[in-house]
């Protein structure tokens, strides 16, 4: 499978990363983006007016898997590596042709964005964080806080394969136990 990343626009502009006004500025930013994010595959630069991005839906972080005939096999509206991995395996089992894994996933996969979203926002500080926090309370403060625990959370957030069922059950139980302990501690403090 070939991979390509299409650079669209500054989603969270700021003083150092203003909205693109020339194709040259966009290309130079794409070069820096590829280098800073260590993207090993091809990065292409969309037209200044986002012609290709708009034709493909203009969502902030989508991924398409296109089959060997040039048709859309899978459309993830919010890029999520484990889901893409499952779609990839399904398409491989279909000899790289046809709609895979039901064709789409439009769930908002926010965990990875919370863990790794801060470096992108940081490029446009302070405006990027103020704008996002104003648009949606917690939009920039939460990624900032969660980013501080990235060492702990990245293995989960960046995993390329779905979690085994036993791990999911274990994490769910741990979350329930943690929440119960928190509630119990609050009650004990108030009495």
């Amino acid at each position, binding site marked *: 499978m*070939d*991979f*390509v*990343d*299409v*650079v*669209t*626009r*500054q*989603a*969270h*502009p700021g003083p150092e*990363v203003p*909205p693109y006004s020339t194709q040259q500025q966009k290309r130079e*930013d*794409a070069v820096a983006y*590829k280098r800073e994010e260590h993207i090993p595959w*091809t*990065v292409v*630069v*969309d037209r200044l007016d*986002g*012609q290709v*991005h*708009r*034709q*493909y*839906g*203009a*969502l*902030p*972080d*989508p*991924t*398409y*898997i*296109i*089959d*060997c*005939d*040039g*048709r*859309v*096999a*899978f459309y993830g*509206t*919010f*890029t999520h590596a484990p889901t*893409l991995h499952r779609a*990839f395996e399904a398409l491989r089992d279909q000899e*790289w042709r046809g*709609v895979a894994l039901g*064709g789409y996933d439009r769930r908002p996969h926010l965990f990875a964005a919370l863990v790794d979203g801060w470096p*992108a926002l940081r*490029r446009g500080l302070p*405006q990027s964080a103020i704008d*996002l926090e*104003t*648009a*949606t309370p917690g939009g920039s403060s939460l990624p900032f806080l969660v980013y501080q625990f990235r060492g702990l959370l990245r293995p989960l957030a960046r995993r390329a394969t779905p979690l085994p069922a036993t791990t999911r059950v274990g994490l769910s139980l741990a979350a329930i136990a943690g929440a119960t302990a928190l509630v119990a501690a609050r009650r004990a403090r108030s009495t």
Partner: protein
Amino acid sequence: MRALTDSPYNFEHFRTRHLIVDAVRTWRLSGIKPGEYAPDFELDDTEGQGWQLGAHRERAVLVHFGSPT
């Protein structure tokens, strides 16, 4: 919806309306639907070389759209 989508593509400030537009587009599955042909396009890569989707037939292609910010 039209009033919401009237803002310029390269906007100056991220606003609540952008979130609303994204949510509506996600709900509608805006873009190319599963099973449809992916429209061909040719864009320059970071080295200034042309990259054409249609030249990659016979191999599956993963296309991600993203922003540096």
